[in-house]
């Protein structure tokens, strides 16, 4: 009975680490698809209604229930009082994404006092930490600041980072090449 969950789980892990760069929700067809440049990943509209992509269903919906921005009325079927649970929360939530993984995680920066604490939290890649030299694929944590610029994590004091950070993305080394070079010290030493 556990076979499925175990094999499915490990299978999923391997697939998760593959850099397939497909849209979330789409089938993972291996390493096909074009490579997206960094700027494109930021603008990517994820989570669009998958109706249009559901080929082979033969489902021919005459009318779309969409309102503006491709948002569907009343979908998912969540009642009004549940809609704003995350938005009314206090704390400073930023989305943390990892290259190669389709899902993001929301993390409350107010819970951490230093880069060391922050970088040691687990990512969506299950057991892997944000910055873990053991996993073989080195990720470079980057963040988008108040002005919309993408910077390397660790360049400024923690407090300043926490205040100006809007979202975080772990990029593979190759992806992060275009960004400003970072000082040799901080990140690598604080993550060990």
């Amino acid at each position, binding site marked *: 009975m556990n076979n499925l969950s175990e094999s*499915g789980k490990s299978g999923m892990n391997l697939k998760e680490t593959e850099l397939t760069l497909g849209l*979330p929700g789409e089938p*993972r067809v291996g390493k096909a698809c074009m490579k997206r440049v960094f700027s494109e990943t930021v603008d990517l509209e*994820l*989570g669009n209604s998958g109706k249009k992509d559901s080929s082979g269903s033969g*489902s021919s919906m005459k*009318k779309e229930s969409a309102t503006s921005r491709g948002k569907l009325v009343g979908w*998912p079927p969540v009642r009004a009082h549940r809609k704003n649970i995350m938005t009314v929360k206090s704390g400073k939530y930023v989305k943390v994404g990892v290259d190669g993984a389709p*899902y*993001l995680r929301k993390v409350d920066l107010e819970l951490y006092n230093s880069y060391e604490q922050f970088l040691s939290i687990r990512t969506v890649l299950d057991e892997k930490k944000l910055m873990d030299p053991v996993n073989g694929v080195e990720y470079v944590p980057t963040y988008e600041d108040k002005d919309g610029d993408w910077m390397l994590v660790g360049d400024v004091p923690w407090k300043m980072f926490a205040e100006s950070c809007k979202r975080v993305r772990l990029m593979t080394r190759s992806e992060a090449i275009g960004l400003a070079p970072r000082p040799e010290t901080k990140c690598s030493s604080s993550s060990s």
Partner: protein
Amino acid sequence: MDPVRKRTKDLSKSVDSAHLAPFPDEVLEKVLSLVKSHKDRSSVSLVCKDWYNADRWSRSKIFIGNCYSVSPEIVARRFPNIRSVTLKGKPRFSDFNLVPQNWGADIHSWLVVFAQVYPFLEELRLKRMVVSDESLEFLANSFPGFKVLSLLSCDGFSTDGLKAIATHCKNLTELDIQENGIDDLGGGWLSCFPETFVSLEVLNFASLNSDVTFDALERLVSRCKALRVLKVNKHISLEQIQKLLLRAPQLMEVGTGSFQQELVPRQFAELETAFGSCKNLHTLSGLWEASSVYLPVIYPACANLTYLNLSYATLQSDELSKLLPNCSNLRRLWVLDTVEDKGLEAVGSSCPLLEELRVFPADPFDQDMVHGVTESGFVAVSSGCRKLHYVLYFCRQMTNAAVATIVKNCPDFTHFRLCIMNPGQADYLTNDPMDEAFGAVVKTCTKLQRLAVSGLLTDKTFEYIGKYAKNLETLSVAFAGSSDRGMQSVMEGCPKLRKLEIRDCPFGNEALLSGLDKYESMRSLWMSACNLTMNGCRQLAKNMPRLNVEVIKDEESDDSEADKVYVYRSVVGPRRDAPPFVLTL
């Protein structure tokens, strides 16, 4: 109406009977009054005229699943002695904004009749009805013995209406206000309960947004010694809930307020003690903004908990994993998908008695794919919780194989509601439709009463449902199916189907008309954004005069299209309060 019974039985008939002497009416009524379930009562009334009458006179509770299926006058005529009324109004999809404002389901006309006919009315439980402040005031002043007011998903009133209830209902035992769209004009209503008022047993104002005077609340809780359910709103702090618990250690169900407050160790200890002193506590909810820091104060109460509602607490997996081993007696658990699969693994390993699990999405409308739960979390729960029979699961990916495993682990599902949030999404591993998943559900779970399907689904799913779901009563369908054949399969199968709600499916007139023989045995059918036309609906209406076929006209749509259709059986014909945008065909 005079509650004195009239003897209508013709005794001469029974003298000729060579069989048993007839029961006196009083005995029959006494016996029948022990039959509680309204379905059984209904069956009882169909046996013969004597039993019909006995049920008539002895019925004190009535349940009306669709307020437009009958009129208050008819109810009053048939049942002279009603003390408790449950009424449901709008179609369920109104919860998701699919029904325009001013559609109907106003309680007032019912109250007017009840005031004349049932002066001793004690209980009113409403779901998805429109209730105005005037109605609440009228209610408060018309029924001196009024005890129970329960409003679930209602709208149209404000806290002023609650003021009237608190002021005038001297015998109130229950005030349960849940998830309503109301105007919150302040918390002063709670202070309207007079100091002499002591009868409250249930108070639920968790969904109200404004502050109540804590002092008044504390005094109310102190003097209502029979209070067993107290659910406060998020303005009540941790410190305040501690004081309330001390006043009412007899509480069985508690909904806390906000769980985020800076506490010193002494306060923390006091809270722990307070929770520990509630020996009868079996249900816990609220817990807004609860985090790992203060959650441990509830640990002393966890061993006895059977129902834990964490759906307002954005807990992470490790927080849940630490909490659950304390809660081995849980039967019902509601959580947010922030707990992720790892959190659900903890559910599977810590709560072997679990019967119901609901996993809600914390970020349902976020355009980015925020991580939640997947198929493996669901499998993990099914593996450890073999008594699971009710599930509501919002996720972003699922596989046919996982669902097959889940129902193999838990074949006793009565309610299986799976929502794969991306419409029309396939099995993410195989890219197949999710037909086999729901096929497995209906084949394996023979007791299934309620099913909600999602994901990429062809007509095959509905063929399975029609063929195997013999006990299915409620079916919810969205963004699914390939042709009319799908819906037809359901209409031709599913002998016990009562409620069918469909949105955004390619089902047209032929599908609609295939259910001709079925709709009178159902409570209602809802179809929106399908392929129905006005002509198809007219044809249905023409062939089935005892159905109300209502079309909600959408300004943007074509005149010939029937964008939103609501069909229901009724003994009173077309409703007279339909707004201009509702056409009854």
